[in-house]
């Protein structure tokens, strides 16, 4: 049986003034999916995802979240279904301790003090920041602040978590930490939707890719399918990860599926090259 749909977008149109940013977008996200949204700067990625938690309302068309049309819902109501982690964590942090920051949203859910404390503790543990609960958020690194923002969202236990470029401005270690954390959340049943420019992360973590180009969906398919049709990516000014390009450039009967990760490339090539030294 197919999982139920958590977000449904029908003929969505949105403009900033005269500038039409989304042009008839249609898509459905099902529970438990791990979706990457890619596209060049200005393609409409953030404008689209901001419709998922009601920050933006459609100019025409409809967006249905948790069975209800967002037009009729308050952002606070939608926040229980869809948590949103912004590109710049500093736009959403405003308390003087990490703990207060994480507790802020949950306090509005009308839960008992004990439950609030439990949820905050659990969320901080999930992002590996329990020892920083009393720290001032701005004493942390940017990657850690990004995780504080994620913890604040987690404490709400939303079904869907949307992350807008969660790895920008971070070093590789921080980048992998946050992606692995998101992967665990997905395995625990959260639906994940993330925006990124990093094609290697898309290949390694996402299951489904939505390619946006000038406000339209150019392609919406599995990572494997999208990465075997590089024409679509070219059309939207994107490039495949270099390991995928390398695999697509090799012509060998044993190599059919695209390489998504270095691991896959290694596992395919190692036996072909035999045990002998290369050079």
């Amino acid at each position: 049986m197919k999982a139920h749909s958590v977000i449904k977008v029908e003929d969505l149109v949105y403009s900033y003034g005269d500038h039409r940013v989304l042009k008839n977008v249609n898509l459905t996200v099902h529970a438990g999916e791990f979706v990457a949204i890619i596209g060049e700067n200005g393609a409409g990625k953030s404008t689209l995802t901001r419709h998922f938690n009601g920050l933006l309302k459609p100019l025409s068309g409809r967006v249905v979240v948790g069975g209800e049309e967002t037009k009729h819902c308050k952002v606070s109501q939608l926040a229980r279904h869809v948590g949103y982690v912004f590109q710049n964590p500093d736009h959403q942090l405003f308390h003087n301790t990490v703990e207060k920051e994480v507790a802020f949203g949950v306090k509005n859910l009308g839960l008992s003090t004990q439950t609030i404390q439990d949820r905050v503790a659990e969320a901080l543990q999930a992002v590996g920041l329990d020892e920083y609960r009393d720290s001032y958020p701005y004493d942390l690194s940017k990657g850690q602040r990004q995780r504080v923002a994620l913890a604040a969202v987690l404490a709400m236990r939303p079904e869907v978590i949307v992350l807008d470029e969660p790895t920008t401005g971070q070093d590789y270690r921080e980048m992998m930490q946050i992606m692995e954390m998101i992967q665990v959340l997905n395995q625990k049943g959260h639906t994940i939707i993330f925006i990124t420019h990093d094609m290697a992360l898309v290949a390694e973590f996402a299951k489904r890719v939505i390619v946006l180009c000038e406000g339209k969906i150019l392609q919406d398919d599995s990572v494997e399918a999208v990465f075997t049709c590089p024409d679509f990516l070219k059309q939207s000014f994107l490039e495949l990860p270099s390991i995928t390009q390398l695999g697509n450039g090799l012509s060998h009967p044993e190599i059919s599926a695209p390489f998504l990760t270095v691991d896959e490339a290694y596992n395919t090539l190692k036996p072909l090259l035999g045990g002998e030294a290369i050079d």
Partner: protein
Amino acid sequence: MNVYEIENLSFRYGPSKAGVLAGIDLSIEKGEFIGITGPTGAGKSTFLKCLNGIIPHFQGGILEGNVLLNHNSIMEKRMIDIAHCVGSVFDDPESQIVSLDVEQELVFALENIGLDQQTMEERVTEALQMTGISHLRHSKTAALSGGQKQRVAIAASLALKPQVLVLDEPTSELDPSGTKAVFEVLNQLNRELGMTIIVATQKTDFLARYASRILIFNQGKIVLEGKPQAVFAQQEMLKCLGVRVPQVAELAYRLQKNVREIPLTVAEGLNYIQRCL
């Protein structure tokens, strides 16, 4: 000829603060394309601020050792003289652009150094051409994409004809095609004008493609330096430091630890593997 000589440079932001730079020795020759990377908090941005004079002229702290720019100490130079030699571009083009249209943005910098009308006109035209944005000359800066804004910021620096361009994460906000456009411009300035380029970035894929020398920072020190082929062959160390290795280099290293010239780009990787298949 050395543009910079850095002698035992250490820096702290205050007497009670931890050291950010811890004894850096380095010479940079004219015409190098230096790529700097390393984990966050390693001192990369602070180091760049010591090269363009922001430290110590605008930002205080405790500095030991010396930074020589064209054989003169940066401490003793006036900021305006440093700015003539060293152009700077930062991660957030929004915060650097002050004018309403692109032409004004370039003229703004030039008016401050007292050039005549004719020379200014030539410099603006040339800087726009070099950065590939001549068609945007009369555009409103607010309407530009991130990649375009960053190229305007570079053009404004270039109009001053600096000898060195220092850039701190100039593409962190940009998509892959915007990033490529910026690096192509830097490459051209480096090759055609012999301009010394010093750029800090996490996008090691691009450093592998464009830099002539890479410096890896960790805890205020340069812990590894050399040509990209040599640096990206040190994968155990890079892994420890949390530095991203270009995918092609990682694959080649895993297939064969002692490869003589580690392939970095897709073309080099294809060549390397096809020889063995």
